[in-house]
């Protein structure tokens, strides 16, 4: 996208809202200055308002993911059915709400189409979907996109439940969790998707939570850059759901931190040798520059 598409028509200048004038004139567009997570709250963001529950970990993570995009002006998000889908209409990127679970298939077609149409340009395709869409109903299409080595980034917003349909257990819920449709507690362990991703051909696979924003940003960027240049990537984001897990809204980050600390949701990062080599070059360049 050409960034200069944002202009004010002269005859509307005097009636444009102040925030729009700032966006165009004072360069507060999130497409113009790669502000990263540090700039959150300091200007226009790719998502500002959303209808998700107070304290929703998923809303926080989505905001941080969008702030971390290395190339927002040429990034297309493919979502899926779930709580995040309700926030997507508020995202200032082209985004596709696919069906439930088919997000990686849609993203495969989209990525290939944009490669054909813009061979000289970088168009990042980032799938952002919940754990139900990624690890349950859509697992086949998620894994097959990895097998095919599609250049797409898959980010799971893991709230350990089907939240939007009213709190059913998902493949990512912890063993024993009592949730709807698991009235006597979930019978099997949390699916180890980062490991499955690694074995399925992802050049980068990780798990993280939003409690440390610099680390979070770095991992989102790594996932996207690796998918752009090397091969498919997967990032799993722990995004606690206060509503279905009966937390107070201000306990979301405390939960994320404690789960990291007690090792029930450790931070993980697997990088293929080629991806590592690529990232080293990139990150060294950054340090030197």
């Amino acid at each position, binding site marked *: 996208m050409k960034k200069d598409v944002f202009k004010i028509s002269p005859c509307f200048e005097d009636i444009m809202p102040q925030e729009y004038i700032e966006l165009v004139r004072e360069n507060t567009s999130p497409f113009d200055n790669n502000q990263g997570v540090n700039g959150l709250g300091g200007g226009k963001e790719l998502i500002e308002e959303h209808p998700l529950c107070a304290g929703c970990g998923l809303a926080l993570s989505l905001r941080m993911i969008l702030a971390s995009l290395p190339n927002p002006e040429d990034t297309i998000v493919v979502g899926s059915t779930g709580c995040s889908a309700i926030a997507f209409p508020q995202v200032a990127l*082209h985004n*596709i709400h696919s069906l439930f679970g088919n997000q990686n298939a849609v993203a495969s*077609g*989209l990525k290939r189409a944009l490669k054909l149409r813009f061979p000289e340009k970088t168009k990042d395709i980032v799938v952002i979907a919940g754990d139900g869409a990624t690890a349950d109903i859509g697992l086949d299409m998620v894994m097959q996109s990895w097998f095919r080595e599609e250049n797409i980034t898959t980010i799971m917003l893991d709230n350990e439940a089907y939240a939007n349909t009213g709190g059913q257990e998902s493949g990512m819920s912890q063993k024993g969790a009592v949730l709807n449709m698991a009235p006597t507690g979930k019978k099997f362990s949390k699916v180890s998707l980062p490991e499955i991703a690694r074995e399925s051909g992802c050049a980068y696979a990780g798990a993280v939570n939003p409690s440390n924003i610099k680390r979070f940003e770095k991992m989102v960027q790594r996932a996207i850059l690796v998918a752009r240049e090397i091969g498919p990537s997967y990032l799993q984001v722990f995004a606690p759901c206060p509503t279905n897990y009966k937390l107070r809204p201000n306990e979301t980050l405390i939960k994320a931190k404690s789960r990291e600390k007690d090792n029930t949701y450790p931070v993980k990062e697997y990088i293929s040798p080629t991806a590592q080599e690529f990232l080293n070059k990139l990150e060294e360049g950054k340090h030197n520059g």
Partner: protein
Amino acid sequence: MIDQKVVSPEYLFFEAPREEMFITGSEAVKEAVKRANVDMAISYPITPQSESMHLVGDLFRDGYLRDYYRGESEFAVMSAVAGAAMGGVRAFTATGGPGTLRAFEAFSTWAGARLPIVCAFMTRGINSPLSIQPDTIEMAFMLDTGIIVIHVETAQELYDAILKSFIIAEKTDVHVPVGVFVDGFFVTHTRDKIKVPSDDIKLPPYNPYSAPVPVMDMENVPIRHMRDPFVMKSNFISYACHASWQQEILAAVERSRKHIQHYFGSLIEAENQDAEILIVASGTAVSQSREAVELARAEGINVGLVKIKSIRPFPTKEIKELSSNAKYVIVPEFNRVGWLAREIKASINESDKVISSPKVFGGMTMPPELILDEIRRCSK
């Protein structure tokens, strides 16, 4: 290296000199896609469709397409084709029978997102019980997905319909998907003489910026909205938005009438339509009916024949007019539900003159004598 000159659709369809080939229906698909300037095709095998998408794969190898792969299931393929179309390329795929049902959720979203995808449906029995045999029952399911439904009779029509459907699907005032339905095995697996222009010409490329909906490429201003009209909020405005969008898709399908008329000549074809007994059919049931009409004529019974080419939009007005003088309307079909008879009954005033018979299913052929029996009964 393939050197194909872009020509106007009008030239390719109506003017270019044609040569005769003796090929199968599956090969007719290949010949169509070869000249369709398709960017991307995604395939998944299912009998009786597989051969056609094998051949499309060969076209990719030979440089006629820019991308092609085998997806992981029909649902995934229809989803990926949707992604490709939203990304602004001309996309093609084909399926049939149980594959159609496995992918079913996708078709409504194609229409909902106004994607100009062309999909060939090579019909076959649905697994009730397991069958791989010819049957058109899947069309009954597809009628209300919002996609345009064309039903062809021969390999020649299959060839022409695929090419013309891209042009109709991509018209700005239409811009909805087109399903080209062909009776599996009867057309896909048999050889026929078909006429095609030389393969050094092709259709003009798709221009995604002619779409009435934004292409998902971040080349235009991203308003805070997604591709589908967004409706998940529970308030009156979102309900109204969803309702009006659904009506707009129906209206887009309606607007395709004039283009179907132009490119296909008409939505229906009729011969001897003033007869008291009319046979109305679509697909290969038309071929069987034509033979039955001959047999009836030999017995001195006057019978008319109406062939329906477009099922969505349905030629309601035409059928109503044509059948107004008829005493009996016989509707032979290759399925057990008689979906075409239902459509016709709903279109005319005296629905009791519609005879939903013979209905042949389970893979059996339809002897013209079965239709003749109905004609004889009506002529008494």
